[in-house]
């Protein structure tokens, strides 16, 4: 293997790939980053066996620049990132390799491997020899099946993750709940997450999905990682599923995650179909009121706050912790239907849910003080937050 590569390109690729590599892995080969040189470009791979990130650096990149398109000089709208002299692959230790590349003096780096798996890294007058590991030892990643895939824009995916992933369980007692369930049926994509005290769900339409997913569960940790690594933009991201992994693919970045094994509980039955009391409230106002009320409840494990409806289109949020003191605050409601209600719930869950809803007004539907209630944005977007109340005497 031998190639010459633009150092900046390599650094930015390594930065993404390094996010998947953990120093505390049990499988020794996973402490390394895999480099593959092929005619089309260089592929970097990093993995901690739960998630795998691949980054592709094309040898020649074409600019989509309108101005130069008109000129017929073809050479101008191409940029050469790397020159591959000899194909091959190697695994290099992730503790040293990225630091070496970052601190090299010149703009380009030459990387050459000898048959004893030793790698020479040359840039300007600096020369490193790094011991590599056999690329055959690296985990084999599933072949990418592009037929069974669907597309989303990156922003939509990021929003989906943000609105659901906070609700996954952190306790390991029911491991399947530490993931987000994904369904794709009738061109509708559903993300749902629950820790058995609350549920966050969002549904969006997907155009021309060529596949159906009855149920699969992605670990919440992987989705958080994915959210971090994706930049905010409108680029398409392709999602495909193999039997034990899910792949998110943007132009140069491949993000693979293992799935959680097991049966996800049926959540649709939890959602009450009718309501006895329905309130419409300004989201921000409610969020701030609950935030204030929770100040006194904080030491308490449940952070309990209580909501009481009044006659004159207002409600009262109160909290009481006997050793500290009490707080009450009146909040205006836009409209109210149904019977009066007193209900207690966890302020933390409520705030998480309200933060996830990015709309001005929410509608909260109650079915009695002991039954779960649901929060939705008023203008009907398919976000649903469900919270179980707390029994107080």
């Amino acid at each position: 293997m031998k190639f010459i590569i633009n150092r900046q390109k390599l650094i930015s690729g390594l930065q993404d790939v390094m996010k998947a590599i953990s120093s505390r892995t049990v499988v020794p080969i996973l402490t390394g980053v895999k480099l593959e040189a092929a005619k089309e470009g260089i592929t970097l791979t990093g993995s901690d066996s739960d998630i795998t990130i691949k980054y592709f650096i094309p040898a020649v990149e074409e600019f989509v620049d309108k101005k130069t398109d008109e000129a017929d000089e073809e050479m101008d709208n191409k940029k050469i990132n790397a020159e591959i002299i000899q194909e091959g692959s190697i695994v290099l230790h992730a503790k040293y390799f990225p630091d070496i590349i970052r601190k090299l003096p010149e703009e380009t780096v030459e990387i050459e491997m000898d048959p004893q798996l030793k790698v020479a890294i040359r840039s300007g007058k600096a020369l490193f020899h790094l011991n590599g590991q056999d690329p055959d030892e690296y985990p084999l990643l599933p072949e990418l099946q592009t037929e069974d895939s669907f597309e989303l824009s990156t922003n939509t995916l990021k929003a989906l993750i943000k609105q659901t992933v906070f609700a996954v369980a952190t306790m390991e007692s029911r491991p399947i709940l530490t993931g987000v369930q994904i369904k794709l049926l009738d061109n509708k994509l559903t993300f749902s997450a629950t820790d058995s005290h609350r549920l966050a769900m969002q549904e969006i339409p997907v155009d021309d999905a060529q596949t159906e997913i009855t149920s699969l569960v992605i670990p919440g940790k992987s989705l958080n990682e994915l959210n971090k690594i994706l930049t905010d933009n409108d680029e398409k991201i392709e999602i495909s599923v193999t039997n034990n992994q899910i792949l998110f693919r943007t132009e140069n970045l491949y993000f693979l995650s293992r799935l959680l094994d097991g049966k996800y509980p049926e959540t649709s039955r939890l959602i009450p179909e009718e309501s006895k009391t329905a309130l419409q409230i300004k989201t921000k106002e409610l969020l701030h009121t609950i935030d204030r009320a929770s100040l006194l409840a904080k030491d308490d494990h449940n952070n309990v706050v209580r909501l009481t409806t009044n006659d004159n289109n207002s409600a009262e949020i109160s909290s009481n912790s006997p050793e500290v003191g009490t707080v009450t605050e009146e909040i205006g409601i836009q409209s109210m239907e149904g019977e009066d209600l007193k209900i207690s719930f966890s302020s933390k869950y409520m705030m998480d849910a309200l933060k996830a809803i990015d709309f001005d007004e929410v509608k909260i539907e109650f079915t009695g003080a002991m039954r779960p209630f649901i929060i939705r944005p008023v203008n009907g977007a398919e976000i649903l937050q469900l919270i179980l109340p707390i029994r107080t005497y």
Partner: protein
Amino acid sequence: MKTWSEVAEVQPLAGRIITNSIKKGRVSHAYLIQGERGTGKEAIASLIAKGLFCTDKDGLEPCHTCQMCKRIDSGNHPDVHWIVPDGQSIKIEQIKNLQKEFTYSGLESNKKVYIIKAADTLTLNAANRILKFLEEPSRQTTAIMLTENSSAIIPTIRSRCQVIDLQPLNPKKFQKKLMDEGMPEQHAVLMSALTNSIDEAVAWKSDDWFASALKLVVQLIEKLVNYPEDAYLFIHSSWMPHFKERSEQEQGLDVMLLAWKDILYYHIGNEEQLVFFRANSDLLQRAALSFSQESIIDNLQAILQAKRKLKQNVHPTLVMEQLTLQLKR
């Protein structure tokens, strides 16, 4: 032991049980392989794992050359997990990681293998944590537990595994192998009583530490026979400085056990079984004269008790002090 046919030579019964179940596609979800050191537990575990993953099997035998087999050998296969005691025991942290691993799908395929070495070092809590997995195995998961001390495995785990007993190696065969390696008979007999691994035996033979350990055992018995009052001092001045690590202390007691066994054998005229002493040894005769059969048996029990105490983390100096007091006539 790299192939099933080699396993069948050394462990005919265990080899047949496992190969038959592979042949019939009835690999159990959990195995508990118990046998002494050097009886081939790890070799069998790795053969089972290779049998499940190898892409180029010749009948039952894995090829040992494909990417799967090579990675299982080097510990780099992402779906084969080895749990090795971290220090004295398997830590709760390791079991937590394993539990997390149970809930994930496999990385390369849906098959997963967990090999827990020295499963007897699982703490009670850790053992109870893996019970759940043994109770409800997910599809295509195989757990293999290896142990030298099968009685330390809690019954709730044992009852959920298929137990494979490995028979102890034949000491005569082992002695012959050692002598083929060029070891004198006297040493070969002693080594065969101490270990089942040829490499280890050869290493010990040329180890200065081991040679002086043997000398110390002789000296201790000499003291006990001639000047019992000095034995206590001897422990502090010579024994403890030499046997520092716990494994070394255990080894010292092992050798001592053999020596006392020899004295008993000499008493009852079973001179062919002697391991530590030569039959015409002066010390052996004097020891046999100064200790009665009953007190020798008491001493053997005291040594076993001391070994047990070391395992239970009693302070080694105290263990040895108590032992010498007990060994006095």
